[in-house]
């Protein structure tokens, strides 16, 4: 029996209220470096609070706003609704 694949999408497509795990950063090197330094790197849990063009997310207890380009550069796997 195989488990259903976990959907992977850019952060901007994560529905509001849902939590995802960062799996890959696809932006330029400088962006990836900074976002990792802010604790937003691979494996970080991120909860989308709101937004579509500009996203507001909760990462490690801090609210981070990302514009569309930045949110497109962060790929997350969607976690079940209960995960936080």
């Amino acid at each position, binding site marked *: 029996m195989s488990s259903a694949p976990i959907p992977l999408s850019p952060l901007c497509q994560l529905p509001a209220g849902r939590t995802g795990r960062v799996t890959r950063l696809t932006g330029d090197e*400088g962006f990836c470096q900074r976002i*990792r330094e802010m*604790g937003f790197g691979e494996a970080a849990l991120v909860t989308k609070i709101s937004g579509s063009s500009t996203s507001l997310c909760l990462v490690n207890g801090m609210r981070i706003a990302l514009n569309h380009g930045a949110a497109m550069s962060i790929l997350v796997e969607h976690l079940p609704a209960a995960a*936080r």
Partner: protein
Amino acid sequence: MAANVRPPDPGADGRGDLPPHIAAASLPRRASPASERTPVYAMVGNPNCGKTTLFNALTGLRQKVGNYPGVTVEKKIGEAYSQHGRPMKIIDLPGAYSLAARSPDEAVTRDVLLGRRADTPQPDRVICVLDATNLERSLYFVHQIFDLGRPVIVVLNMMDLAQRAGIEIDARELEARLGVPVIAGEAVHGRGVVELRLAMSRAELPLPRHRWDVPAPIAPAVAELQASLSEGDGRPPLVARAEALLLLTDFDTVRVAGSTPLSARTTGILDAWRQRWAGQGTDWSGTLIKSRYDSIHRLCHDVTRRTRTQGPSLSDRVDAILIHSVWGWLVFATIMALLFFSIFTLAEYPMNWIDSQVAALGDWVKSTMSAGDLRDLFTDGVIAGVGGIVVFLPQILILFFFVGLLESTGYMARAAFLMDRPMSRVGLHGKSFIPLLGSYACAIPGIMATRTIEDAKDRLVTILVAPLMSCSARLPVYLLMIATLLPGDALPAGTKAGIMLLMYFLGTAGAFGFAWLFKRTLLRSSPPLMILELPPYQPPRFKDILRHMVERAWLFLKNAGTIILAISIVLWFLTTYPKHPDPAASPDVQIAHSFAGQAGKVIEPLIKPLGFDWRIGIGLITSFAAREVFVSSMGVIFGVQAGDDNTAPIRDAMRAAVWPDGAPLFTPLVCLVLMVYYVFAMQCMSTIAIVKRETNSWRWPLFQIAYMTGTAWLVCFAAYQAGRALGF
């Protein structure tokens, strides 16, 4: 597996397991500052973690604080005293997430810590201020600071907020694990300041003992680079290690090395290692960052405890409205409307009082001094000029009160969030809106605030358009023209506020329009990526807001008592001399005969197509020093022209002004066009000086003068000619 390359942990003998070439020169386990000179402390931490509040508490200074990232963009130096009365120098540095600086404000922090600033002593000790609500992220920067091998004091700030969020931190355990003093506190309430002062007073402070193993694939490169930087580039041993780690974190070597180019040997080593890792598919930057975070994560796991699961906080609930795609904009518009409405309603009483005092002073001087040039100098020069501008003080204070509220509560970052979408249409991101919003108060701090913008071209575009935002210096000009345009107090304040709002809108639209143009022509670059931290909301700190208002009021009055006074006296002289041969000549004839009159006539052909005469032209020239000088200039010119018996407000004298053919000068159309001129024209020498400093060239300030003043002329020409054609 991890290699044995570690930050300084010299152990009992002060040598530990440092590489031999460093061990010889390493600091002892307990480092004491040189007793002969004042110890220098650097205060560092992430943006908006409360550094400046702590700095003010220690030094008694009053540096600006606010609840948004990027309030401090330049180092500030203050002095504090130890418990034994010894002076200690403290450097408050701009907030940074990492020593791998990505913006000019972070570069200041990095350069001071690495001892690269010729104008600043390298700190002996470092105070790391941590946001207790965000320990893990805060410790990343501290981790890098430990690489510098300097004694460190850690301050866990905002402990009250952490407790409210259900985070419990064992400060004693953290101290034991890090090996440096850890002080829990709340800088806003002054808690922890005494303990910090005591820790700073210690003659000896331990060096950090937190162990961190550089990942195995990277470790040999660190050792090799460290040796090369130390031997070939002349870096002190511990700085060499920190810099080696930075070179292996940041992809931009130039950014790390700063203005000191790396030696060929170091560059060769770096290139060789990067090529090797590229071939192996090793993500060296990511590996280093992850390794630090793994170490920090383990530490945080041991010293923190969640007492309850965090549900939506108050900030989350407020944000649900304030950054909502519909409600958010409504609130934003309401705040702006309330601001302008308050300027016209609340300020009325103090303004009338100041106005009456200025008039009474003029009358008193007239009644006590005998008629003559000296009396005219006082009444028409000093009192008309300076009094004409001082009357606007209440309105400027209201503007600063509102801006202070926005900064203090945390709304500034929300405004940037809201504005991100419109900003992206012109090629910038929401972060650029914070400097623009700050420019509503004054373009100078606004331009300084662009230092938080990472991309050099985006920063330059923001600098170029920031002075288009209507600053407080334009306020007196707008108010005077609105008073001239709409005489009488019977008119609703809403109409006046509406015109004012229109001018602010025009300036903002101009800033957006030119940003769009510059991003597509002169300063083309790819769309920027924005990451902006939104701080939790906090109740406004009225004490700080009032203090800032008092400082601004003092600055305004100081300008009025110096620059504006001097210009008013010179202008009075230029409008009074040479005397007309006929002593009975009317004031109109006399002023036309004066130096100012003659000079004004020379420039009149240039401004007549805009509906302005030579008297307005004089105001335009003098207000190049500062925009508000226009009001004092009008006070002097029309004060002189009104003759001895008239102490009516400037607006009445202006309403009575006519062209030689008897047509009124200040028609509603001219008043509006004049306001539009001030929306667009570059009329501020201080702004020009700061743009020169920030861009390190005369090219951009000169370009700014040309494009802004050129636009002002063209827009005013079109508006005036169109208005005339339509019969206004």
